């Protein structure tokens, strides 16, 4: 009997982790559809930023209520996962609380897991109330209707169930130890310390050991199967940030937020135009066989860089960006969160085509227009509030700018007044139609 459950456990673990590895490979494959970008410089500074923002949650706590609750859930998640290690060893080798050889320290560990589990449970319940009952601006946006809202709630329910299972498992285990049940009880006395689940004991009062074992085993199995399921749900949900927040912050931009990249392809053109020695009749340099000419800006996910695509997978749709966005606050269609969600949705659509057909085949759609509207792109003031607000270093503005570049340089589709301002800059060196020769007139006026 014991060996059967050990084999079943091994199968579950292998399937769960195997499936997870497959999904991670797909995720990396999809990210690599983007353009390469070198973000391997300044490793020390990058690590420090990751330690501060991702590991240290420094931006999360800018909003004290949700920030504090998130820190609890985050710490709970990290610490309670030590318990998963024990569960895996017990499951594979049929042992009971294998780490209990640590003695007093083990009691402290289990006790802290229990306290954290309760705090996580409370935190997650408050999160649910914030999302579903309190009218919080950033949870009411149109892009959260339907699946994204359900997805968020499923994750919360999942965490609630996992925490309850963990506490039930401990409570029944404790009761079985108290009853002196074989396999559970140890000669050394009670293993583990149960400051929270002890209060559940009355629920199991008077039950036979056989019933208790069934409940304990059921909670144990459901807990670990739930974790394996959750691990694989990540890829299909908005919840990948628990893994990707770290690389995402690491690879985020280190330059001042106001600095926007200069396009090298444009620099080359401008240099050529301004070079008095350039041969106007020179044949263009031999293109590589089948190479496509460089496109200016982005109209689809292939034109974005790999960090931008990683950004889209990392986004957990918290909406802090959207809440800070001046355009969104004043009723415009732009929502930086939607920019990230759309990018990911389109990338997933492309990925799904590759999954089924082996390579990408045009499905008549692209990121521009089919997902992100021009009206959204033109509402941006490039104020960087979204970038500043993101707790995990996502840069929605860089995608907006790249898409504007496509609109202006490939389609000449700037809004009319902007096109006029640009013509003015081109003709007289100012966005308004004033003569450059009048530029110093102010000095003569009183």
């Amino acid at each position: 009997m014991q060996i059967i459950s050990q084999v079943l456990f091994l199968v579950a673990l292998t399937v769960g982790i195997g499936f997870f590895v497959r999904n991670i490979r797909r995720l990396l494959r999809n990210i690599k559809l983007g353009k390469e970008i070198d973000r391997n410089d300044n490793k020390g500074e990058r690590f420090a930023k990751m330690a501060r923002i991702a590991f240290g949650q420094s931006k999360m706590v800018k909003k004290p209520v949700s920030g504090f609750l998130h820190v609890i859930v985050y710490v709970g998640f990290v610490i309670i996962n030590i318990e998963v290690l024990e569960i895996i060893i017990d499951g594979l080798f049929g042992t009971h609380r294998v780490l209990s050889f640590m003695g007093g320290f083990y009691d402290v560990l289990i006790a802290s897991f229990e306290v954290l589990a309760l705090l996580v449970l409370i935190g997650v319940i408050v999160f649910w109330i914030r999302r579903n009952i309190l009218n919080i601006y950033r949870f009411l946006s149109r892009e959260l209707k339907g699946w994204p809202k359900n997805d968020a709630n499923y994750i919360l329910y999942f965490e609630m169930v996992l925490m309850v299972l963990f506490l039930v498992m401990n409570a029944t285990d404790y009761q079985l130890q108290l009853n002196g049940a074989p396999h559970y009880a140890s000669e050394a006395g009670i293993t583990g310390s149960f400051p929270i689940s002890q209060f559940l004991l009355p629920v199991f009062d008077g039950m036979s050991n056989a019933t208790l074992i069934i409940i304990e085993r059921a909670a144990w199995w459901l807990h670990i199967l739930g974790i394996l399921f959750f691990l694989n749900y990540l890829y299909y949900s908005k919840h990948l940030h628990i893994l990707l927040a770290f690389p995402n912050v690491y690879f985020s931009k280190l330059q001042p937020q106001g600095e926007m990249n200069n396009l090298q392809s444009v620099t080359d053109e401008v240099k050529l135009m301004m070079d008095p020695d350039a041969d106007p009749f020179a044949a263009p340099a031999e293109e590589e066989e089948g190479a496509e000419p460089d496109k200016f800006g982005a109209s689809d996910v292939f034109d974005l860089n790999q960090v931008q695509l990683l950004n889209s997978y990392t986004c957990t749709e918290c909406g802090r960006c959207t809440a800070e966005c001046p355009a969104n606050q004043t009723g415009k269609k732009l929502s930086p969160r939607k920019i990230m969600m759309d990018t990911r949705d389109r990338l997933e659509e492309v990925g799904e085509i590759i999954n089924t057909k082996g390579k990408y085949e045009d499905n008549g759609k692209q990121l521009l227009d089919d997902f992100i509207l021009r009206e959204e792109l033109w509402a941006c003031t490039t104020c960087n509030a979204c970038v500043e607000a993101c707790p995990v270093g996502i840069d929605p503005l860089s995608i907006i700018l790249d898409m504007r570049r496509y609109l202006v340089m490939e389609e000449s589709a700037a809004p009319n007044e902007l096109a006029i301002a640009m013509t003015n800059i081109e003709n007289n060196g100012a966005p308004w139609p004033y003569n450059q020769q009048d530029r110093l007139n102010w000095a003569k006026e009183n």
Partner: protein
Amino acid sequence: MAEALKVPTMAEYMAEGKKPEVLFWVGCAGSFDDRAKKITKAFVKLLHEAGVDFAVLGTEESCTGDPAKRSGNEFLFQMQAATNIEVLNGYEIEKVVTACPHCFNTIKNEYPALGGNYEVMHHTQFLKALLNEGKLKVEGGKFKGKRITFHDPCYLGRANGEYEAPRDLLRKLEVELVEMRKCKSNGLCCGAGGGQMFKEPEPGNKDVNIERTEQAMEVKPEVIAAGCPFCNTMMTDGVKGKNKEDSVEVMDVAELIANAHDL
């Protein structure tokens, strides 16, 4: 004031075989916009008062390309950058000061990779440096005790992390500095950036500058201080939109200092 301001140009300096200590980059708004020209003049007066050896490019100056770049016209931006860098490098400019955070950000952050390397300062940073060096005195005067709130320009604050220089100057004026709910790194944009200054906003339920003006009004200021000609326009329009132009003034930090000195 009958006397015209003395504003030397780089060309004049060059003709005399001299080089100024710093180039004052005026910017398009500072050159052409009636409201912004007052800021330009106030800053020039302060430069004179502090005895700063400066010059402007005058008719040789051209748009930095900021609105073009942020509207997506990288080509036009780089054309502007290339010609400006040629002029600046031709005069062997080393230090640039500007009263426009957009010019400041562009020249400081985006010109170096295109061959333009200068020490670039926002005018509030420059004035603060003059103050620290003892070249400029900033003190109370007529704004002493007035309730003033500072609106952070995105391209000075968030974009480049400078929140304190303008506030330090205001504190020196002994004003009652009050902060808006949204300030410093959380400051709300005035609505002009990213090319919005030159176009109608997209459909929505409010203009950004009205939202920002309402936030400023919450702290009941007598003056809204700004550090950017575009913010100045947006906030001035916002105050007018609220029919408060008689009780609330929108002024640049440089104007506040110059006015306090009765310049």
